[in-house]
């Protein structure tokens, strides 16, 4: 990739990445695989399983808010035999705590970053595998260990973690949550953090070193950019959570006093945990959205059949957000007690983030403006992502502003807001990506009708559920209440809460369309051609569906960016509205481009 792209360089690139032999044994092929595509699938399955788990926990929370203390229908007696199916307050604490942790760390992260990071990065930059395949293998199995720890935490006395997903001490100390489950969950977070960092090391290095000849930085698809920037945030900020978790474990088991004070017995400072948690926590929300932004940049261009509008601007905006995300964490602590001057600074920085976010939004809209839009399932999910993220982003402004946050803090408004941004947007974006790349992963097409059913249930469901939650929060309903309606001023919100719960159940039922579609297509879907969506990125133009074990017999040479749709000359000469990144088109023009490559490298 360095210097002039001469034939000799292209030849040299062929030898720099080994062709791994296709493993013969079952274990090496299906269990301890070092193939990035297979590891991606492992992450996908592990993530989907826990997505189901976390989703069921969400349904229990919703039930509790609609009919507090009443027996859960159907599964109640099975889950809570001691109380004839009713959720008790301690169980309720465990449910909402583990719902948050499982969804963020054990469902979204593996699906979005573990699966699509692994699958897309090497294929889309033209590499044969990750830079460190063994580290990749280890990354998955360490992740599996962390999931096992999560499951184990449910099996011990007093149940799993119950101190809220933020795990603040003193509640998370031995005094607040004495059960072993809390420790196991914190340990699981630490272990999954190790796995995430291993993945990040791989992604960052692979993108820096293994881009195919001609694949300049700005010829990388938005997807790769998003995943790469996310990996940088992961590498830098997940260790901070790891440190905080470690200190919490020391406090719980080795008698240290980092966060213990007052009645908990010590001279430490629990507020410092909040700092550490949000130093990680705020970048984390961008960790969960940057890949989605990347997907959306690509999907809009792919299915509007137009070049992405001001692609560089979108990338610069993502880089800006990546940098800013590190310096805004204080907006989570406006009511914790902070110097007003510091609070003002955090507020200003927080609101500044809306500028690059706005650039991204306008670029997406400009991209589809007057495009030849194909409303495929991934495109629908992309548009849905934009919609829910827009709602969530706009309501974030109220929370980033101190004066309004003082009122809204710790209400359902916050819950609705962050579920729209980092849960709904991540959910819809990830499913869009799954519908897009499923044919490449498994070589079969998914049913578009069921995909659309899934889309409408999901998008409408998510919007209603979290929209109503914001409404309840605006009306004053605090988050995390076991029985909100024991407070007379919230009694009037019971009907709203019930209706929200029905919406949530509809949302859950709509997921069956996906489950059926996924399993049916896996085994009996129509065989996918190499390029069913008619896209120009490398994984569609240079790899079979599914790709061979080493991806490319010859490392491809890249001539242009990822979004070349409806180019007039291509239309005229090739008679189609797309051209591959690796397709030689006009030798004279291509030669000029390779000089450009030389100039930019």
């Amino acid at each position, binding site marked *: 990739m360095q210097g002039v792209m001469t034939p000799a360089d292209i030849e040299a690139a062929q030898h720099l990445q080994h062709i791994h032999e296709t493993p013969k044994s079952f274990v090496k092929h299906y269990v301890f695989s070092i193939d990035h595509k297979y590891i991606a699938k492992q992450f996908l399955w592990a993530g989907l399983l826990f997505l189901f788990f976390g989703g069921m926990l969400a349904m229990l929370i919703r039930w509790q808010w609609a009919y507090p203390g009443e027996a859960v229908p159907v599964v109640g007696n099975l889950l809570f035999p001691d109380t004839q199916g009713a959720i008790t307050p301690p169980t309720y604490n465990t449910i909402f705590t583990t719902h948050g942790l499982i969804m963020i760390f054990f469902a979204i992260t593996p699906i979005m970053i573990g699966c699509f990071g692994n699958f897309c990065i090497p294929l889309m930059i033209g590499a044969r595998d990750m*830079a*460190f395949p063994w580290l990749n293998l280890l990354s998955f199995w360490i992740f599996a260990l962390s999931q096992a720890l999560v499951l184990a935490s449910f099996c011990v006395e007093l149940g799993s973690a119950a101190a809220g997903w933020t795990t603040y001490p003193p509640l998370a100390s031995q005094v607040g949550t004495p059960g072993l489950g809390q420790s196991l969950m914190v340990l699981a977070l630490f272990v999954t953090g190790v796995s995430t960092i291993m993945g990040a090391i791989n992604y960052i290095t692979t993108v820096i070193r293994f881009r195919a000849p001609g694949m300049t930085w700005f010829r990388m698809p938005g997807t790769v950019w998003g995943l790469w920037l996310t990996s940088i945030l992961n590498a*830098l900020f997940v260790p*901070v959570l790891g440190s905080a978790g470690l200190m919490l474990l020391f406090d719980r088991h*080795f*008698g*240290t006093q980092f966060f213990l004070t007052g009645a908990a017995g010590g001279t*430490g400072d629990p507020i410092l945990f909040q700092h*550490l948690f949000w130093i990680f926590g705020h970048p984390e929300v961008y960790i969960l959205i940057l890949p989605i932004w990347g997907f959306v940049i690509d999907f809009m261009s792919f299915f509007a059949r137009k070049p992405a509008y001001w692609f560089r601007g979108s990338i610069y905006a993502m880089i800006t957000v990546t940098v800013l995300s590190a310096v805004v964490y204080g907006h989570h602590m406006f009511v914790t007690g902070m110097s007003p001057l510091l609070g003002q600074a955090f507020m200003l920085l927080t609101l500044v983030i809306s500028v690059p976010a706005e650039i991204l939004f306008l670029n997406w809209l400009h991209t589809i403006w007057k495009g030849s839009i194909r409303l495929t399932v991934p495109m629908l999910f992309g548009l849905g992502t934009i919609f829910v993220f827009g709602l969530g982003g706009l309501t974030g402004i109220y929370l980033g502003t101190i004066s309004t946050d003082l009122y809204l803090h710790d209400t359902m408004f916050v819950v609705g807001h962050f579920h729209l941004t980092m849960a709904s947007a991540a959910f819809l974006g990830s499913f869009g990506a799954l519908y897009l790349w499923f044919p490449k992963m498994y070589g079969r097409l998914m049913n578009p009708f069921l995909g659309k059913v899934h889309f409408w249930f999901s998008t409408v469901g998510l919007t209603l559920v979290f929209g109503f939650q914001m409404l309840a929060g605006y009306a004053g309903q605090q988050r995390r209440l076991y029985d909100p309606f024991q407070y007379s001023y919230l009694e009037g919100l019971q009907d709203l809460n019930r209706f929200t719960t029905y919406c949530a159940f509809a949302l859950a039922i709509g997921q069956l369309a996906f489950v059926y579609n996924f399993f049916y297509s896996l085994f009996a879907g129509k065989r996918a051609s190499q390029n069913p969506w008619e896209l120009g990125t490398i994984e569609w133009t240079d790899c079979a569906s599914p790709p061979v074990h080493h991806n490319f017999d010859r490392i491809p040479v890249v001539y242009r960016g990822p979004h070349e749709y409806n180019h007039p000359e291509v239309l005229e000469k090739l008679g189609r509205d797309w051209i591959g990144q690796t397709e030689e088109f006009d030798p004279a023009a291509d030669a000029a481009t390779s000089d450009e490559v030389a100039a930019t490298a």
Partner: protein
Amino acid sequence: MHNVVQLHPQALLEQRRNEQTSAIGMMVALGSWGMMFAALFFMYLGLRAHTLAWPPPGLPALPIALPSLNTVVIGCSSVALVRALRSMREGQRRPASLWMLATFVLGLAFVGLQTLLWWTTWQQGLTPSTGTLGTVFYSLTVLHALHVAAGLAVLAYLLGMTLGGRSMAERVTTLRLCGMFWHFVGGVWAFMFVGMFLL
């Protein structure tokens, strides 16, 4: 004894490139590790800023002599490892082994002296649960020492490989990565020495 393995130019290019790739991966990893230690330091500074006097009243001051000696020890071990890597690159097995052995012994001495340090402070009545001083002192130094121990394990493995007559060209990358980690751990100690014992 010069046994430079004559590699084919293409193979040499490949090896260099792989080494660079690994070094980039290691840098990212060390960035992560650095953030982990930075968070621990943040905690230390935060706790210290909350206390009017440091050490907190009634607790003994941390010793200074042993940590100073240890700073010298770990500094020397880093120098020795630089020399080991240089010898290995030149294909000189004996000096490479000797310098690696020196690094290993110095690293072991570091852990030994740290243990002595813990023993001394424990005798003075400082335990992990005696206030924030004990908490940060033991947590940070023990976590650091565990990293040194991990480095020692890799060094021992490499030393065994080198003495066992394995091709050194293959081990250069591993030693270089091990060296990066080792210097990083030494750097963290330098921070700890200044931040916790000197100031």
